[in-house]
């Protein structure tokens, strides 16, 4: 039996699962009604299930609840904007501005992955806006800081990269 309190998008939530080897993805979707993180592959290869745990990028499909600290901060796409439409996160706004998504099933991964990455850069004092090439390498898992690949099958890659660069410009300000 696993019982835990997490702070989901800033709000305290209790979860209890019969078996805490259960992956976080299922906890979030089934018990906490989150729709942002998606099941894409279940084996950490696509990014569709990406969430942030204490600011760290996590593939929730392979992250057992047991590995999430009690009281951890979990952020999902569902909680990125407030209810007020005018309060979209710069990443969400940029994805809309660039129309960066066809089916858009994948964008949870790119938005949350970019959020963790950019925020991490800013937090360590790096306020430069990444070049498109750097963003593309990042999303391909081809940078020193990340080997995680993000898959988009519809071919919205150029727009996604543009959107992340544009949002980064806003986030560093």
């Amino acid at each position, binding site marked *: 039996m696993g019982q835990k309190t997490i702070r989901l998008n800033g709000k305290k939530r209790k979860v209890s699962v019969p*078996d805490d080897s259960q992956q976080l993805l299922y906890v979030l979707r*089934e018990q906490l009604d989150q*729709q942002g993180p998606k099941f894409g592959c279940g084996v950490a290869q696509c990014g569709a299930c990406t969430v942030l745990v204490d600011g760290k990028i996590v593939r929730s499909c392979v992250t057992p609840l047991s590995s999430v600290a009690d009281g951890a901060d979990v952020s999902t796409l569902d909680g990125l904007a407030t209810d007020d439409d005018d309060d979209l996160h710069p990443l969400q706004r940029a994805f809309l501005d660039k129309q960066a998504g066809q089916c858009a*099933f994948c964008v949870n991964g790119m938005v949350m992955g970019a959020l963790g990455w950019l925020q991490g850069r800013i937090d360590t004092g790096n306020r430069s806006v990444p070049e498109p090439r750097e963003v593309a390498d990042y999303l391909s898992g*081809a940078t020193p800081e990340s080997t995680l690949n993000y898959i988009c*099958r519809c071919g919205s*890659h*150029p727009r996604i990269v543009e959107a992340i660069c544009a949002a980064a410009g806003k986030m560093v300000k």
Partner: protein
Amino acid sequence: MTARVSRRSFLAGGSSLVVGFTLLGGLDRAEAANPNGLLRINPTAPASTTEAWLVLTPGATTVYSGKVELGTGVQTALTQIVAEELRLRMSDVQFVQGDTVLVPSQGFTAGSKTLQQGAVTLRQAAATAYAALLNLAAHYLRVDPSRLVAHEGRFRIAQRETSVSYRKLLRGTNTVLPLNTSAPQVAPVDYRIVGTDADRVDLPAKLTAQFRYTTDVTVPGMLHGRVVRPSGRNANFNSIGNVDRAQAIPGFVRVVQIGNFVGVVATSEWAAARAANPTTGITVSWTPGPALVNEASLPTALRDPANQYKATVELDTGDVDAAFASAAKVYQASYFSPFHMHGAVGASSAVADVRPAPDASGIQATVWSGTQGVNNLRGAISGLLGISAPAVRVLYTEAAGCYGHNGADDAAADAALLSQIVGKPVRVQWTRQNEHGWEPLGPAQAHDMRGVVSGAGITAWMHTIYAATHGSRPSATNAGTLLAGQFIGKLPDPLPSSAGDASGRNSEVTYTFANQRMEAHLVKSFVTTGPTSATPATPLVHLLPRSSSLRSLGGLSNTFANESFFDELALAGGFDPFQLRLDSLTDPRALSVLDAIKPAWRSRPRGGNGVGAGVAYQQYELVNAYVATYVEVAVDAASGKISVQRVVVAHDCGLIINPDGLRHQIEGNVIQGISRTLKEEVHYAGDAITTLLWAAPPGTSAPAYSVIRFNEVPPIETILVDRPDQPVLGAGEPAIGTMAAAIGNAVFAACGARLRTLPMTAERVKAALP
């Protein structure tokens, strides 16, 4: 259905103006329109393939579309058309799509036909409704219609303050109109919304996690199912072990086995996943069956007459034999493409709620699916469950982009079967391995090209294709077209009788060659009842992985062969391949897309030294959109790795409804095309697919089905040729067809290696280097 509503009560049922596109004779398919614009269709009435509805009430303007949004933006484009003709705002128009109760049948959403066909009828329906509203307004304001102008839902008398809203006019109106083919349409010069970059209507909800995809559908009391697939295509069920281990999982409900269909049901998805996993739940043993045609021998096996059931000549102009006989040299080349996946990012899922008896409205089974054809799926599921089709309701819900007939329908069948057995609603989520291992694939295809080139250009051309089926979509009358149906012993439909616009799509060319022949050799996907029979024998024995419709069907492989061989002949004849294309075409629209990429071709890299450029051209399905594509590549001689450096696509698909949406479609085609050209290949061994993931798990070298990564995507320029006076043509598939040949031609220019097999892997490049 609720008690049938009579025509009379339908007309008295509220204030509405309804345009039914094929509603010429009667109202038998419309049962009721309620004030919020919802309409029910009588599912027992015969469905027309062109029918659609537009319903205006004081509260809403609603399009009932049998064509569905597959992630390509058609809902936005269709909304633009309706808003334009009705002088409304985009946000005034709502869209109900893909529901066998609410929406009439429009066949499948496929083949880039949604806008091409849907736009025409919808536009005229909206024009019909507008003309009716205009008359009502003129009557109400007592002026001649010519003095009225409409804007955002309100008619005004020109130069005056007097006005009336649509809302007011619709109150108390009960009219059902047939399509008025002479209702005037907005002239292209007056477009305010069509031709603009209207934002995608669905994206805001998708970016804020509010959008409900198929995988997000939940219904009260819903259980979770997982399926356990056979060890191979021809394996048969033997036994289930470790049931007690599964039973001990909290939330476990039961194991289901009928024939080769095995699944588990539990109260949570996690419990179902554990119960279906052989390391934590049940273990299923299978009796192995015969191997499929050996993968490595596919190029020869497809050409072997023993594996074919039919050969047909589908085009024969001039006298190819005479031209070959009298030629100084007949050039020949053979091409091959492997099996490809759709590879949606989201593994297929579905929800089904099958009851022991029909509810008050006559519905016994409700299914939520990302299918491309709700009506056909309804029929197939009705056969699977033994429930009459009108008692089955299929609701379309958008899944991850599908690009054709993927696992969506099969997942729906899995959910329906499990729900029927446990008597509760069941959601089925396929695993990635289910999807990679069992979705219907785009089939391998082989090509033999022969041609003659002289000082006059290409004078004779013959394309022979060796092709498996591209059309195994659900049939409304055969549950054997669903995977679950086959597992419980039903047979698939017979194989196609021609290559036609499926495996044969774009196998012919639109060049003005004096002599041209296309011959198709149709390959058996399974053992049939005789050497020339297309009908499956019992029991079903697969010879190839199950194949069906994948974006552009045979088009990508056919145009790969055609447009690569065109370059081979051009270069053999001493021609500039770009100029020879111009000289071999007469259609001004064809010439204009080629002209549009001429600046790129003129400033191309010289070739050699590992850098080169190539072009390819096609007119999609020979009569639809025109595409000319220019590609630059760099080839690393040491490793053999190809990287695409730049792509320029010129595209003419008639009237452009949404330029930005169109560019996005073209970009998607280019990127998926590069991926299929350079990386994608389904592998199998024995009778089982072995490429079950996107990448080999760390530390292993397991085969994988890998797709393009972000840092492999080149800059893409799109040149849109707008033809406001021409019909809308689809744009979902035309550009992908040009990609393999344009890349292959560029690789040849870069390093002299002619790649005739997809994917163009580094090993193949090295082997082909001169």
